[in-house]
Structure formats: C-alpha cells, structure tokens
C-alpha cells in the first residue's frame, strides 16, 4: 500500500455496487417489477433503487473517493468517514428495499422501515458529500471538478426529496400530506438524480479520465464550458420548475410546467450534444493509436446516451413520453450510466490493483504492464453482448414485449457476470505470467478489502 494516494475502501464500494447490479438484473429476468407491474409499483421501486443507489451511486462514490484527489491534486480529507458512509448507505438501502417490500405486502411488519431508510441514506450521502466537498474546497476547481461539485449538490437534492417521500409514505409529516408530491417532486427526484448526480458527475470524471488514458489534449475547451452552463441551467430549471411557474403565473403571464420542462430539455440537449463534440475531439486527437477496450466500450455508452436523447425527443414529439418513460429510463440507466460504469471499471480495477501490488517496487524490479492484468481480446465480446442486450431490451420495452425483454436482460446479465469474473481475475493477478506475478517486495492484493 503506497501512502494515502490509493483510496482504501474504493474496492469495497465497487464490490457492493456490482453485487447490486447483478441482483437487480436477476430480478428483472425473473419478471419482478416493471414491465410486469406498473412503473410506480413498489416492486419496480425496489428494482430501481437497487440500480440507482445500490449499483450506480455506490460505484460513483467509490470512484470519486479515488478520483477527486486526482482531479484536483490534493489528498482526500476526512478519509476516516468513508467506511462509516458505506455502512450507512448499505444499511439505509437495506431498510429502503425492505420498506418497498413492506408496501408491496411481501414483508409484514409494523416497523417504520422506510422512515429508518429516510434517516440512514441521507446520513450516508451527507458523509460522502462532506468528505468530497471538504477535499474539493482545498483547490481552485478545474472544470471537471466543477461538474463533480454540481453532481454532489444534486445528490443532496435527490436524497432530501427521497427522504421526504419515505417519511410521507411512513405516515410521518402529516402537515405535508396535502401536497401533490407525485406531480411536483417526483420528476425532480428522478431528473436531478439521474441527470444531475449520476450524469453530470460521470461527465466530469470522463472529461479527465478519457483524455488521461487516451493521451489526448485535456485543456479546458470553450465547448466544455457551454456544456457546463447549459447543463447547470437545465438542472436548475428542472429543480425549480414548479416554483418558477407559480411565480410567472403570479405576474399574470401564462405559463405551464411544460414550458420550463421544455426549456430544460432543450438546454440539456445542447449540453449533451456539445459533450459529444468534446468526446469526439478526445478520440480524434488522441496520441494513443491503439485504443484500449475501456475507451472502446465507453463509445457504446456514449452511443446509448445519444440514443437516449433521440428517444426523448421522439417520445416528446409523439406525446408518448408517459407511456414509454420506462424504456427511456432503462436505456439511460443500463446503456449510458451502467455501460460507462462497467467500461471504466475495466480500466480502474486493473490500474488500482497494479498500483497497490507493484507500486512499492516500481523502478526497482521488472513489473508486468497494467494491460497484462486483463485479456482484452477475450473481453471484447462481453462488452458487445452487454450493449446489444441493452439495446434489444429497450426495443422490447418500446414494443411491449416483456418476454423478449427478459431474454435481452438475460444476455446483459451474462455479459455483466463475465465482466465481473474478469475483474476478479484482474484483482487476483490471474492473467499475469507466473514468473512476473509477485516479485520480491510485493504482496497479493485482497479481493475487496484494503491491505492491512
């Protein structure tokens, strides 16, 4: 273990995250939740939060603990809180899922499970945000770090609304029971969670990570600044749509929430298009001629992001957004966010494993290359299968074919499991030649716990 540059608990976050990803996919194949039951059914909520909190948020938190210090070249501040945060998040999520099962009638108990989740999850995310913001405050923020900071603000908004829902559903806060949360707050919870916390943060991290591993010029670009401003404007509009409309109507002008949502969608689209332009620039101007599998697979995720934007436009144009929102969210969560997550894990896990194992003898002894920890040729097919599965699944949802969806989800699960196995093999140094595996002075990294 070299100094404090390696985040101690990141692998534990990743492991928990992957377990939830696999678990959620197994439930989908079993026909649990949407599309077999409505999108707002408790069974679907169970599934959705396994993916968004269990998989994507834990993945993002684990990655940020490692990469925020790299983004701003400052050590992590308050690293002792990282493990308590994980414990709060995992236990909070367990209560949340149990609470949904209680609503579904699967669990019969009088305990206020959702209310407990409504305390533990905010506590966990507050600890995460506290550590990361405390670290970010020490530096002048570069553009990628500003995206992350905005994402952290968004997770607080998302989790606050989520906690309010949890308390309302548990029968607490009777004073607020008269408000129509489903109409006013739920869209904000979804849009700020997926668009702000997960997407904005992922954009920020990718602005640094992709150029770093493709050796592209990573100076701040004017288009990136437009991505930032239009993205922020879109998020603020979405978060404040209802109050803004109320204010505009107060001045006697006509306005509907659709006006604000339409404007937010337009700004969000501008943001995404320019983000695509920036990424195309990184790929075109890379010094690394041979592109590695993680960067290649990230292209699949970007394609899914573009398709998501086009699908949103098509659904808005045909007035069928309400009907097909499940398919859109599936494509965003599994194509874009999970696709990007898995592709970057495929680089991050071997890279961190390499540093952990070979860092102490670097320059003193011959070491394998980072690329020797994986076998890219073997794994290409899994990423291809993954994205094919997601695209077919989205198509199946759009044409209401739940059985086809389950087959497609099966392909996605198979690919996910294969990638997980490859990550385990990388941690185990399985693909490294016997003679080079453990030179004197190195020790084998643990699978998902920090070195002693």
């Amino acid at each position: 273990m070299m100094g404090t540059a390696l985040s101690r608990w990141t692998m534990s976050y990743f492991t928990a995250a992957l377990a939830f990803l696999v678990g959620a996919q197994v439930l989908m194949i079993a026909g649990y939740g949407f599309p077999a039951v409505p999108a707002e059914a408790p069974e679907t909520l169970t599934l959705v939060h396994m993916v968004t909190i269990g998989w994507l948020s834990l993945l993002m938190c684990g990655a940020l603990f490692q990469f925020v210090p790299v983004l701003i070249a400052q050590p992590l501040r308050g690293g002792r809180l990282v493990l308590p945060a994980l414990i709060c998040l995992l236990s909070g999520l367990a209560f949340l899922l149990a609470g949904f099962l209680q609503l579904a009638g699967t669990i019969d108990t009088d305990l206020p499970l959702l209310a407990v989740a409504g305390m533990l999850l905010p506590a966990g995310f507050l600890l995460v945000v506290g550590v990361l913001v405390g670290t970010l405050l020490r530096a002048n923020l570069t553009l990628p770090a500003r995206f992350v900071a905005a994402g952290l603000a968004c997770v607080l908004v998302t989790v606050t609304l989520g906690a309010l829902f949890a308390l309302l559903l548990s029968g607490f806060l009777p004073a607020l029971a008269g408000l129509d949360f489903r109409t006013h707050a739920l869209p904000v919870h979804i849009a700020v969670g997926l668009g702000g916390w997960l997407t904005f943060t992922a954009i920020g991290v990718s602005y640094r990570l992709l150029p770093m591993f493709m050796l592209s010029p990573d100076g701040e670009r004017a288009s990136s600044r437009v991505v930032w401003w239009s993205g922020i404007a879109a998020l603020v509009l979405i978060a404040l749509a209802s109050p803004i409309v109320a204010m505009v109507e107060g001045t006697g002008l006509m306005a509907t929430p659709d006006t604000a949502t339409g404007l937010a969608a337009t700004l969000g689209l501008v943001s995404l298009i320019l983000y695509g332009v920036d990424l195309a620039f990184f790929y075109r101007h890379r010094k690394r001629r041979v592109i590695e599998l993680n960067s290649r697979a990230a292209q699949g995720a970007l394609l899914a992001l573009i398709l998501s934007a086009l699908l949103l436009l098509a659904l808005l144009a045909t007035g069928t957004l309400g009907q097909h929102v499940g398919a859109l969210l599936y494509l965003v969560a599994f194509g874009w966010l999970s696709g990007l997550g898995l592709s970057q894990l495929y680089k991050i896990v071997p890279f961190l494993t390499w540093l952990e194992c070979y860092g102490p003898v670097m320059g003193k002894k011959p070491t394998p290359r980072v690329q020797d920890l994986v076998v890219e040729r073997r794994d290409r097919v899994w990423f291809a299968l993954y994205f094919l599965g997601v695209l077919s699944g989205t198509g199946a949802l759009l044409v209401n074919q739940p059985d086809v969806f389950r087959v497609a989800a099966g392909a996605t699960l198979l690919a996910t499991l294969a990638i997980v196995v490859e990550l385990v093999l990388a941690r185990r140094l399985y693909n490294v030649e016997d003679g080079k595996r453990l030179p004197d002075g190195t020790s084998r990294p643990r699978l998902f716990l920090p070195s002693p």
Partner: protein
Amino acid sequence: MTQPHYELDVRPILREGGEPFLAVMQAVDALAPGQSLRLLATFKPIPLFHVLGSRGFEPTAREIGNGDWEVIFTPTESQSGGEASQAESANNRVDKADEAWPEPVIELNNCDLDPPEPMVRTLEGVETLSPGQTLAALLPREPLFLFKELESRGHLWRGSFDPEGHYRIVIRRG
C-alpha cells in the same frame, strides 16, 4: 591504485540500438573503492562525462579505431571520502540554500507514455542516481501517485507546470 580497471564494453548494446545507461550505472555501483572504469563505446560519450563527473570520476578518452572510443573513468581524490559523507554534505547544502540542488544528471520526457509508465520510467531513473543527485522529468500531469511514492522512499522533489500544461519535476535522491 594498483587494482585493474573494471571493464565494460557497451558497443554490442549500442549496435543493437539499446540504451547502455543502466549498464554503465550498474558498473559504477559495482566498482571497488578507488577502482576505475574502462568503458568501450561506439562514440565519444560526452553526456556520461558530466554524469560521472558529478559522481567524482575524471574521464580520459581516446579513439581506438573504427570510430570506437575507450574512456577510462578514474575516481578523484574527493570521491574517496565515501558516498555517505558526500551525500550528507549535499543534504546540508540543500538545507542551507535551496539553489544548491545540483544540475540534473538525467533528463526524461515521459509526456507521451501511457499511465502508469511515466511514473515507472521516472522511478527507474531515480534508482540509478547516487544520493544527492537529481533527475528531471517532464510528465503529462501533476503526478499525485508519484509524490506519495517519492515520499515513502525518502526522496525530495520540486515541480511546476510548464506553459504547455506539462509538469516538470526535479527529483533529488535521498
């Protein structure tokens, strides 16, 4: 100084397009106190004169035909005091005045390497230095992981960004 020269012929390495620097430094490390190094090369190795001069060796070079050169590096008086005391005095100099860092004996450009290669090459270079010597490396970005490694190995460093956004680090072996 009656002991024989330590012989090192780097011509085969050079003819194959290789880089003999490591072999030379290893040979220097293997010298007995007071022993000189007889080096055979395919050109007059001027850069080495500077590198080994800073380690207390005086070069005598002569052409031996076919464009090949023989250089004998003889340890000077000041070197015989031993490396430890030399390193200690270097340390003191640095503590007293910042400008006392010696000129880098190795210059590396690691900008176009794939991570973590810039760090690996830099540390490989550092391993060939004697205590108190410095190495300069140009890196694609501020090397957070390298700092931690240098710290844990007891080396000192200074760094800053150049106008192109690369990070130039000078490392002084501890």
